[in-house]
């Protein structure tokens, strides 16, 4: 049995897409808004977390507001047979914020592994990545570091809350 009926669950999810209310008892407030009990709302939220709909109730930082000015996309060309193992190791490394496998588009684009790395300034990010690649034995693999030099648009559309972190 699920904690909420379908309509309540849909309404709760819409409310949570806007964020968690900054209240002493946020789940009681949400329960009042959808006509359910606090216990059931909390049970539903816990179930969604167990199911992987979200990983945590957390926050999205605006990096530039925190003095985090360097944003690098590290791309590597790793043989298909090895790319998952390398991706798992890179994603576990300190400083790596996102890590994805994507298709190559030959001859225009030879790279299949993408990591986002943030830091306070470019020199430290470059040094950090060089050390990381050396440690993982990847220095000789074809790779590039694409620093961003300007953000033209940071979010948009109804998927903005997720896009803030997910980079497609």
């Amino acid at each position, binding site marked *: 049995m699920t904690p909420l009926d379908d309509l309540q669950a849909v309404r709760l999810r819409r409310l949570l*897409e*806007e*964020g*968690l209310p*900054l209240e*002493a*008892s946020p789940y009681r407030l949400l329960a009042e808004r959808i006509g359910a009990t606090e216990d059931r709302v*909390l049970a539903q*939220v816990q179930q*969604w*977390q167990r199911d992987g*709909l*979200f*990983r*945590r*109730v*957390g*926050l*999205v*930082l*605006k990096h530039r507001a*925190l003095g*985090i000015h360097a944003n690098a*996309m590290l791309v590597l060309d790793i043989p298909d047979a090895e790319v*998952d193992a390398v*991706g*798992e190791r890179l*994603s576990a490394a300190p400083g*790596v*914020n*996102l890590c*994805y*496998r*994507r298709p190559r*588009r030959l001859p*225009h*684009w030879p790279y299949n592994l993408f990591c986002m790395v*943030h830091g306070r300034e470019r020199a430290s990010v470059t040094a950090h990545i060089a050390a990381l690649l050396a440690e993982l034995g990847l220095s000789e693999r074809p790779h590039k570091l*694409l*620093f*961003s*030099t*300007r*953000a*033209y*648009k*940071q*979010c948009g*559309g*109804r*998927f*903005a*809350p*997720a*896009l*803030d*972190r*997910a*980079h*497609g």
Partner: protein
Amino acid sequence: MDDLDRRLINRLQLGLPLVPRPWEALAEELHSDAATLRARVQALLDDGTLTRFGPMFDIDRLGGAFTLAALSVPEERFDAVAAILDGLPEVAHNYRREHEWNMWFVLGCATPEGISDTIARIETLTGLPVLNLPKEETYHVGLHFPV
């Protein structure tokens, strides 16, 4: 931003406990009080340090379609092309990057057809080929960035 803000941000990156009165649980950990912590989060949202507080939904579970895309834009057209993308609601996170492929952005649509339609529209509007790099696998990271 003071020491309490930093400790609060670092702690919240690990996730707010899923309990009826989460701020009280956190206040004990951080040696503060619940009302102060909530006011701090509100202030950090108001001044733009945080852009969101709440469940971090898994993009793969949202039912939409997404891709990372890039354009190789001639220097003299860069701002004009950026303005075109700015006008498209499907486009997010448009960054200039130092590479021959110098404009990188994310597309978010309700359906996969929406993605291919949007790519076709961008190619028509700009006259430039789009590099379409949809995610094939996610390697999960902790997302913890100490401040």
